[in-house]
């Protein structure tokens, strides 16, 4: 019986074998040693579409999605409202089923979209140039760190406290064999003095997340100038770039490299992926950048057009001397971010940021009214903050879940330093009523 994904029919196959001059398909595989062929069998039945959909639906229904809860879980992945148009526009077959536009004449649409993406990211971050995407925030940061090491030929990286732990772990993995020494400062290092005291002559770059993992605002012009004076590059990591709608862009503050996670730009939470890494830089680093770059040029009749450019940095040309090994990237996610930003516009993005900020500050004020709940930090924050709720009952998360709440990120997962911390995030999707109810339920839960 034919299969919908296998267009060739038995007759066509026979005719093709005949043209090739072969009797049986097995002959085309006879170069494969027979011992290998014999063991290649495995057990896997076929399912029709309805059966397949049923099985996956069953898996899906075994989960409790954050989006159906009143969720305060952020900690690196941020639920925001996604305009309905995004799915329809990004899902068009011409985008979805194409590959990297190696043949520019045939794919001017994709190339222009990526060019617009680069432009939007550069504008938003205040940088000269952005590439066409990285796998995600953590890998984008790891690549930026490697870039800084290679560019400066120095061998130390200082990472400010409050880096997203996912990013921290990925940087660790990526740099393990690079010769770079990474100094991850912990929040505990802070009180002992400025993190700047850890900079040395050998410091290639300083990594600063802003807002940091705890939601804190830490990036200032002064800080970046000092780093520059110390001879190090500054790499700013942004985990929710909707913040750029109301925060001064790192480029304007003097950052050298700005990288981050742009999932917040229209990508669903989707259990952590696919997401979208972005990487923006000062012009100086242009030829050291990893990843695809789309450039504007002209055709032989003088018409404007777009091509993949500066490919001599890339693995398919430079092989082991390439700036990175990245090949397939997050093209469709970059397209989604572009559509998201086009729909939101400056007013929309500002509203998202402002509403998130207002909600988080309201929640903070209400939570810290509960006697046992203390703020962890006394620092300005964006849309996320850490509190110490005293001690949590053992089944706290289950109890709150049963009441319809995901009460944020359990900071004990971040570090044993936090005996009972909660990191709480609010997007524009939270309402006053939800937050009030949450505070009531939380207080009830804490009084065990």
């Amino acid at each position: 019986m034919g299969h919908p994904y296998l267009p060739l029919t038995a007759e066509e196959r026979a005719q093709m074998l005949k043209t090739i001059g072969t009797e049986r398909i097995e002959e085309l595989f006879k170069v494969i040693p027979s011992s290998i062929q014999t063991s290649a069998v495995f057990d896997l039945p076929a399912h029709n579409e309805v059966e397949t959909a049923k099985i996956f639906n069953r898996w899906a229904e075994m989960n409790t999605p954050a989006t159906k809860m009143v969720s305060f879980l952020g900690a690196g992945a941020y639920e925001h409202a996604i305009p309905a148009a995004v799915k329809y526009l990004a899902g068009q077959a011409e985008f979805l089923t194409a590959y990297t536009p190696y043949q520019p004449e045939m794919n001017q649409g994709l190339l222009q979209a990526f060019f617009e993406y680069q432009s939007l990211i550069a504008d938003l971050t205040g940088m000269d140039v952005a590439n066409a995407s990285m796998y995600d925030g953590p890998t984008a940061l790891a690549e930026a760190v490697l870039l800084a090491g290679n560019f400066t030929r120095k061998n130390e990286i200082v990472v400010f406290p409050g880096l997203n732990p996912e990013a921290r772990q990925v940087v660790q993995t990526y740099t393990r064999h690079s010769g770079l020494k990474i100094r991850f400062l912990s929040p505990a290092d802070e009180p002992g003095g400025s993190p700047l005291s850890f900079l040395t002559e050998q410091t290639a770059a300083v990594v600063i997340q802003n807002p940091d993992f705890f939601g804190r605002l830490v990036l200032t012009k002064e800080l970046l100038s000092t780093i520059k004076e110390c001879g190090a590059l500054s790499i700013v990591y942004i985990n929710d770039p909707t913040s750029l709608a109301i925060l001064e862009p790192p480029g304007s503050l003097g950052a050298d490299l700005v990288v981050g996670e742009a999932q917040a730009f229209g990508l669903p939470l989707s259990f952590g992926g696919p997401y979208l890494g972005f990487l923006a830089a000062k012009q100086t680093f242009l030829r050291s950048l990893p990843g695809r770059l789309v450039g504007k040029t002209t055709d032989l009749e003088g018409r404007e057009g777009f091509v993949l450019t500066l490919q001599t940095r890339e693995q398919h040309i430079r092989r082991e001397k390439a700036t990175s090994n990245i090949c397939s990237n997050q093209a469709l996610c970059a397209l989604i971010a572009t559509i998201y930003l086009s729909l939101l516009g400056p007013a929309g993005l500002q509203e998202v940021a402002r509403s998130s900020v207002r909600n988080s500050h309201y929640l903070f004020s209400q939570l810290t009214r509960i006697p046992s709940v203390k703020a962890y930090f006394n620092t300005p924050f964006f849309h996320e903050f850490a509190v110490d709720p005293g001690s949590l009952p053992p089944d706290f998360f289950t109890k709150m879940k049963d009441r319809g709440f995901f009460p944020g990120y359990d900071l004990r997962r971040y570090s044993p330093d936090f005996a009972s911390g909660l990191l709480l995030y609010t997007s524009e999707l939270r309402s006053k009523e939800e937050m009030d109810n949450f505070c009531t339920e939380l207080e009830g839960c804490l009084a065990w």
Partner: protein
Amino acid sequence: MVKKERPAFLKETSTPGRRGYLPPVSDVPTVPTGDLIPQPFIRQTALTLPELSEMEVTRHFNALAQRSFGVDQGFYPLGSCTMKYNPKLLEDLPQLPGFQGLHPLQDEATVQGALALLHHAEEVFSAITGMDAFTLQPAAGAHGELTGLLIIKAALTEQGESGRDTILIPDSAHGTNPASAALVGFKVQTVPTSSAGVIEPETLKPYLGPNVAGLMLTNPNTLGLFEEKILSITKMIHEAGGLVYCDGANMNAILGWARPGDMGFDLIHLNLHKTFATPHGGGGPGAGPVGVKKHLAKYLPVPRIVATPEGWRWNYDLPHSIGKVKGYWGHFGVIIKALAYIYQLGYEGLKQVSSDAVLAANYLQTLLKEVYHLPYDTPCMHEFVLSGLRDKQPAVNTLDLAKGLIDYGVHPPTIYFPLIVPEAMMIEPTEAVTLELLNSFVAIMKELARLAKEEPEALKSAPRTTPVRRLNEAQAARQPVLKW
């Protein structure tokens, strides 16, 4: 009615005050943002996003779609990329609220279905490749390579073999292989391909030594040829103290026919966006899960999914692990699609996929070698590489032929790769073809050969049917304009 001029940039049609979306607005008692965020942090630089209505955004991206070309538009025999048909059901499944709405850091108790699915995907990939354990974390093929090489490094280091600093890579390999090796701090030594297009054990032998960490091998290789001596090769490397990595980008040739795990490979990455029909998305996202043999399982990235009496859990307690290579757990959405594809075909169907892919490639090879030069003239696997026209035409090169194809509505093959074949055209039809389609492609290719001889100008000036003509790539690189 596709217009010739490029659609105006979003920025160019932006008009102050226009809105494309109204997000929800906070309903808590109003406080000016300035009271919440201290002044030094507040944006002073103008925010210059475009201002457009939903209709304008829609028309813009529709216009861009009309100037793009995917598998759904026509034949796309881009070698090494396995541009097969992307079934539509696959798009539905990751959008189920029970998948799409999951935050990666939810309590494990609330994501049992997702963990079960992921764990099952690991098992299925193991069965298909003959490996023992899989990580789903890598975001793409190259990322899988990086992961695999980190594992090799970790294993060797633990064995006290950290002196092994060299990875052997055939000259036909994809650029990501050497680049990945370099990223992990390995030296790269290039192994030449034999005149038969494969690696000969004899050729390999001189490279083996105490510095060798391992070999990265694509099988079938990028010439579309199965490494016939694979069992000897992997044995040699093992005996020399190295590990063997399989670049699994070409798995579409051998599903159900051969498993890298049975060839002596220690580890492998899969390209889900190639072999398992998840759409390429204009360049991504893909996914590059890595499978390993038992002895390497302890080095896989953290966390690993484990069964416990309380259900599926993330296990971080893996002291030998290389660590994390990516945020969270990999491209969940892509993995769902790949697994749904595999489920619909089953073992028999997957084997037929490879049978048909190989059949289609051989059919094209048989007919095209009449007019194009086939440097390795032997039955191929799922793809083959031509080296320009048989009857060389000085005025016309592979680029011209590729551009000529465009005017016939066919996406050109991969060109000028692998690097060892001059004027290479790497053709991979995949199984998603009909005989009619293949015959029409052959006819077009023959017509191009005729044009090359009789009207070379027609090819030099191709394409003509596209919104832009041939683009000045040199200018783009010389004076880069990377933003509006």
